[in-house]
Structure formats: structure tokens, C-alpha cells
């Protein structure tokens, strides 16, 4: 059995292994900067790195696919070692960024030093607040954004006599779900109800984000017990009680449901536009994309599910050159779209969306321009989500509350109030009022 001694031995080894990193090289010759990212995004970045080197012969860029999730631990270790062995440019997700800036002050460079704030309005709305530290510093530039969406089976909707255009709120979606279940036997949405093998909170989080809410507010107070959180959980409970929420726990359950046409909706963000055709090539022509229904009539249908960034290590001797590359890669429409085409990373830069690929009809989606759903969504404007440095803990506690509601019939308000108190106790944060 792995016991505490094994765990501690590991812990004590961490700083030792972190010392064997890159040494700053001699001043002569071109400056070399290292970029840490993961596949497949690395392919896109590597492609534009060559263009950058041609335009800037004094800088060499080495793009390394460190891998996700390995990169998070490597960055943590590097920061704990005071920046030794870290890459100069780091690809960081929205769920980790606040942890790094809050736990390791100075670990990431404040990019205001290089004039990064002039790009403040260049990115999709809702992203800029997420790059700011508590001190107002700019610690990253947005690279990727994943606007929320839903993918639905056109054939199942048709069979049930439901026009997707009339489904504008989740209330209407629940009524449609009942009809679809009756006519075709298909569930509306699937969730891993007991969270077997890990939390499955993407759907719930999307329902929160559509209301501009999350587990924490922008001040870092706990909002897991708030009105928005209860409203979203109540929607899940109603779907569950209506028998239209499938349980996708267990080996292969999800795959079977999708293959057999037993799931009418996949509430997935922009990355799925290219993923669904890979996953189910034989279902070509059956799927369509649309914006998620609103929580209440006339409410917001847009949400940003997650986003990723490029940051510069605060201890890098080549911060200036590193930032020059970040700015080159992320703030020019033609460059970011080249990355999108090569590496499949949906760009955060608003000016990129005028490119014709975002309006191009897609055969897999029956000729629908599937990407347009998502650029439209971003144009509507989503709210910023503050993940905080305690996201991992919040995710687990919220997931437990969801399991209580979906498998034990717990009352959403009661379960979430308890969860919020637990989260506040464990993270030493305040409960948001109201």
C-alpha cells in the first residue's frame, strides 16, 4: 500500500529533480527561447515559430510538447524551485493560472512591462479579466477560447417533431427532451451521475457560466451556495426526475449511448466541432450545432467554458524576446488562424473570426457552418470566470453535491448550501453574501 512515507518521499524528491533544468546560455549568437505546450496545439505553434524566426533572426524558438496534464506538475515544480528549469514561455489553462499567480508571486512575468495592456480589447469579451492578477498585473495573453455550445441529433429532433429553433430556454429543452424520449427512446443529455472515475461537471459549469456565475466570484468568495448555483442544479434535477438525463458512468456506457442514437444532445464547446467527426465518422450528416438554450427567457445563451493562455516565466533571462514571440503568435489574425488550422486551437483573438473558415459550410454537419455558432456566441459576449487557486477542491465538493442530488434525490439548495460551507471551511474563504 502507498502510505504516508511513500508520499513524503516523493514530496521531498521534488525540489531535487527540479534543479537539473536548462542553464542560461552565453550571450553570443541568437537568443534561444523555450516554449512549453502540449499536443496538438504544439504543432500549430511550431509552424508559426519558423515564420517568427525568419522575421527575427536574432531569436530561436524551441516549441516543446511537454504534455497535458504533465505540464501542470512540471510548472509547479519549476516555480517552487524559483523558476529554475522552466520554459521561457508557458502554455497555461484558465483553471491553473490563478493558482500560479497567487501561490508563486513573481513566478510569471507582469507583461505590462512590455505594453501588453494595449491588447486589452483585442480578445473575446470575458477573457481579459482572467489574465489579471490581484495586483492588476497582466500575467498572460489569451490564446484559445472554448465558447459553450450544444450539438444535437437533427434526425432525433425531427422524429419527435421538435423544431430546434423553438428551443431557446432550458425549460423548453426539458419539454423537448420528454417528447424525444417518448418518440425515440433517446435521452436528452448524459452525465456521470455517481462521478465514478472522476468528476463530470462540465454541463453544470456551463449552466453556471451562462448566468455569469461560478463556484467563486471575482473577489474569490464562495458562491457555490448562491441563487445561480441552485438554479442550475435544479435544472439538472428536473431533467433527472423527468427521466431524460442518462447516467454515463461505467466502461463504454457513453460510447454505446452515442453509437446507438440514445443521446440527443452533447453540451460540448467549440473543440468538439472537429472532435465529433473524428469520434463518429459514420454519423455524418446527423449532427448540428447551436448555442445553448438560455437559463431564463431572453437570458444569455453565451458562455466561455474554458480558455488557455501563453505566459512568460518571471525568472526567464529572455523575458523580452519571449514576450515578442507571444505577441507575434497571439495578436495577429493571420498568424493565430494558421495555428488554428495546424493545431486545432480555437483562437481567442476577435479579429481572427473574419476569416472565411469560420463561415464555411461543413459537410459533416449537413452543410451547416458549425463554427459560426461559436463565433456568434462570442459576439454576444460571455462573462469572465474566476477559477481561483482552489479550483480542484471546489470541483470535487461541487461534484459530490451533484452526485447527492442526482443519485440520492437530495434537495439542490440544501446540498449546495452544505457544499458551500465545506468549501469555505477548507479553503479559508468567505461565503459570498446573498
Amino acid at each position, binding site marked *: 500500500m502507498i502510505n*504516508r512515507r511513500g508520499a513524503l518521499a516523493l*514530496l*521531498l524528491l521534488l525540489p531535487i529533480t527540479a534543479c537539473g533544468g536548462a542553464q542560461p546560455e552565453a550571450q553570443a549568437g541568437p537568443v534561444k527561447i523555450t516554449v512549453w505546450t502540449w499536443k496538438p496545439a504544439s504543432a500549430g505553434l511550431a509552424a508559426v515559430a519558423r515564420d517568427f524566426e525568419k522575421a527575427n533572426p536574432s531569436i530561436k524558438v524551441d516549441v516543446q510538447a511537454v504534455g497535458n496534464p504533465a505540464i501542470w506538475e512540471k510548472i509547479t515544480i519549476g516555480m*517552487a524551485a524559483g523558476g529554475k528549469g522552466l520554459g521561457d514561455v508557458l502554455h497555461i489553462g484558465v483553471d491553473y493560472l490563478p493558482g500560479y499567480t497567487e501561490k508563486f508571486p513573481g513566478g510569471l512575468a507582469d507583461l505590462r512591462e512590455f505594453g501588453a495592456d494595449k491588447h486589452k480589447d483585442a480578445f473575446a469579451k470575458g477573457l481579459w479579466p482572467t489574465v489579471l492578477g490581484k495586483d492588476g498585473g497582466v500575467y498572460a495573453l489569451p490564446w484559445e477560447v472554448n465558447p459553450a455550445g450544444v450539438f444535437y441529433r437533427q434526425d432525433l429532433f425531427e422524429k419527435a417533431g421538435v423544431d430546434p429553433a423553438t428551443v431557446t430556454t432550458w425549460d423548453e429543452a426539458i419539454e423537448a427532451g420528454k417528447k424525444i424520449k417518448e418518440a425515440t427512446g433517446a435521452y436528452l443529455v448524459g452525465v456521470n451521475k*455517481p462521478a465514478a472515475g472522476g468528476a463530470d461537471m462540465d454541463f453544470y459549469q456551463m449552466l453556471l457560466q451562462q448566468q455569469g456565475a461560478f463556484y467563486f466570484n471575482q473577489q474569490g468568495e464562495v458562491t457555490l451556495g448562491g441563487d445561480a448555483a441552485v438554479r442550475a442544479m435544479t435544472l439538472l434535477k428536473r431533467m433527472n426526475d423527468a427521466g431524460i438525463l442518462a447516467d454515463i458512468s*461505467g*466502461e463504454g456506457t457513453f460510447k454505446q449511448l452515442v453509437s446507438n442514437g440514445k443521446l440527443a444532445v452533447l453540451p460540448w464547446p467549440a473543440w468538439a466541432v472537429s472532435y465529433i467527426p473524428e469520434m463518429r465518422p459514420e454519423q455524418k450528416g446527423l449532427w448540428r450545432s447551436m448555442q445553448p438554450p438560455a437559463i431564463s427567457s431572453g437570458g444569455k445563451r453565451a458562455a466561455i467554458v474554458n480558455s488557455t493562455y501563453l505566459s512568460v516565466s518571471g525568472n526567464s533571462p529572455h523575458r523580452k524576446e519571449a514576450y515578442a514571440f507571444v505577441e507575434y503568435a497571439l495578436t495577429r489574425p493571420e498568424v493565430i488562424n494558421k495555428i488554428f488550422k495546424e493545431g486545432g486551437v480555437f483562437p481567442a483573438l476577435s479579429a481572427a473570426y473574419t476569416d472565411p473558415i469560420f463561415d464555411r459550410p461543413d459537410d459533416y454537419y449537413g452543410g451547416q457552418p458549425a463554427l459560426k455558432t461559436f463565433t456568434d456566441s462570442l459576439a454576444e459576449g460571455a462573462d469572465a470566470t474566476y477559477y481561483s487557486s482552489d479550483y*480542484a477542491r471546489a470541483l470535487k465538493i461541487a461534484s459530490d453535491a451533484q452526485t447527492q442530488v442526482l443519485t440520492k434525490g437530495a434537495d439542490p439548495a440544501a446540498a449546495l448550501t452544505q457544499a458551500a460551507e*465545506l468549501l469555505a471551511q477548507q479553503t479559508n474563504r468567505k461565503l459570498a453574501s446573498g
Partner: protein
Amino acid sequence: MITRRNVPYVLILPALAGFLVFKAYPILAAAYISLTTGAGAARSFVGLDNYVRLVNDPLFWTSLWNTGLILVVQVPIMLLLALVLALGLNSPFVRLRATWRLGVFMPSLTGLVAYGVMFSVILSKESGLLNWMLGFLGVDPIDWLGSPFWARIAIVIALTWHYTGYNAVIYLAGLQSIPKELYEASMVDGAGSIRRFWSITVPQLRPILLLTIVLSTIGTLQLFDEPFVLTGGGPDNTTLTISLYLYQNGFRYFDFGYAAAIAYALTLIVAGFGLLQIKLTGGRK
């Protein structure tokens, strides 16, 4: 200069050095870490805060309760089963003895990953072996890993499968060390097989029984592998054990100070249980 007087110290030096580096240092470092919060440069001393937080943490009590429940249910079942197996293996009528013994001991040699994959296949709700077999008896499919009650049972089954053979082998060694003369003498006195079991086998095995009870209790208190590979502590924390909670805090939430405090709490509990058992059973041999 090696002399006659210092040679014993020279001989134990490698072991001592290993102990200091790999045991004493981590144990002391953990004690210090449990009094701090944060990581790396941001580590700060907080005194007993982590321990106060522990006492007020409902999840810690949940993990303690779960571990206790599994301990109380699983250890007696497993040890009884192991004893029965050992008696069978020790019987003079058994053929292919080596094969049987190997079979009984094999599960304790199985690696964590292989074992996890195997049990997920056996316990799968839709296509699992166990539900398929229960289907013949007319039993509806059981959600082994998704239902709070059955997930605990699944952990008990997996644990029992893993460690029964190990204990059976210890009992077997104990059985074989009981002098044959005792049985022969009692048979001359007219004792039946049941009487021989209670009056000779059990008292003679007493130190061995105590050993396995203490070892199994300590092992179960540190239970980690089974919930980690099978349930991840779920659903809704019903299979969250102390060690798993420690791991989550350390390596998922990077809250090393709190994880170290949990480790020290667990050490106290284990030490307390060990002492209590030795006192209660009065074993000194």
C-alpha cells in the same frame, strides 16, 4: 581504524544511514510541514492551524468513519476465511498441494494496475462478469461502483480477494508448527475433531492470530489502493479512506501542510489501535 570494539557499529552503519535518510528525515520533515501552509517560497509557519482545521473538517471524519466501517466488516471475514483455507491446505487428504497453495497466494502478488483493471471488468454494471453470473440466479444488475452501499461492498470484496491468501499462508505456517504429539495424545484421550480444533489448534495459533489481526488492522487503516483504482473515493465520498484523503490533499490540491497533518493523525490512530489490541489480547509471545 576498525577495532574489535567498534566493528558492530561499522556493520550497522549502512542500515543506520539508510534509516536516517529515508525514514527519520522524512518523518521529521513531515512534522515540520504539518505546521506550515503553502508551498515553495510561499511556505509559512501556521502553528497548529492544520490540526484545528482537521478536527473541524467533516470530510476527515467521513474518511475516518468509512475506514472504520471497512475495518470492522472486512478484517473478521477475511481472517476467518483465511483460517478455513489454511485448514484445508493443511489437510493430509489434499492432492496437488503446491498448486492449491500457489493459487491461494497468487492474488497478493498481483500488481495494483492489473488488479484495478481486472476488477473494473468484473464489477462493471453493464457488461461485468459478476452481474452476468448473478443474472443466472435472477438477480438484477447491481451498480457495484456507482451505488454508495455496493461500492463499499465492492471494496470489501476486492480487499478480501487481495489479502486472504497472504493471511492463509501465515496461518498455514502456524498450523505446521503445532506439534503432532498434541493431536495424537488428545485422540488417545478420545477428543473429536471439533474438540481438537478449539482446544489445541486455536490456543496454539494464538500468537499468530494476534499477529494477523494487528497487521490487517494497520493495513486497513492505511487503505489506499482499492478505493484509488476502483472508486476514486466515490460515490459521494462513501469509499473515501484516510490515506486517499491524504493523497487528494497533497497531490491534487497541493495542500502539503494539511496532508502532513492528516498523516500524523493517521499515525496516532494506528499506534493507538496497535497498543489497544496487544493489551486486549494480552499477547506477549
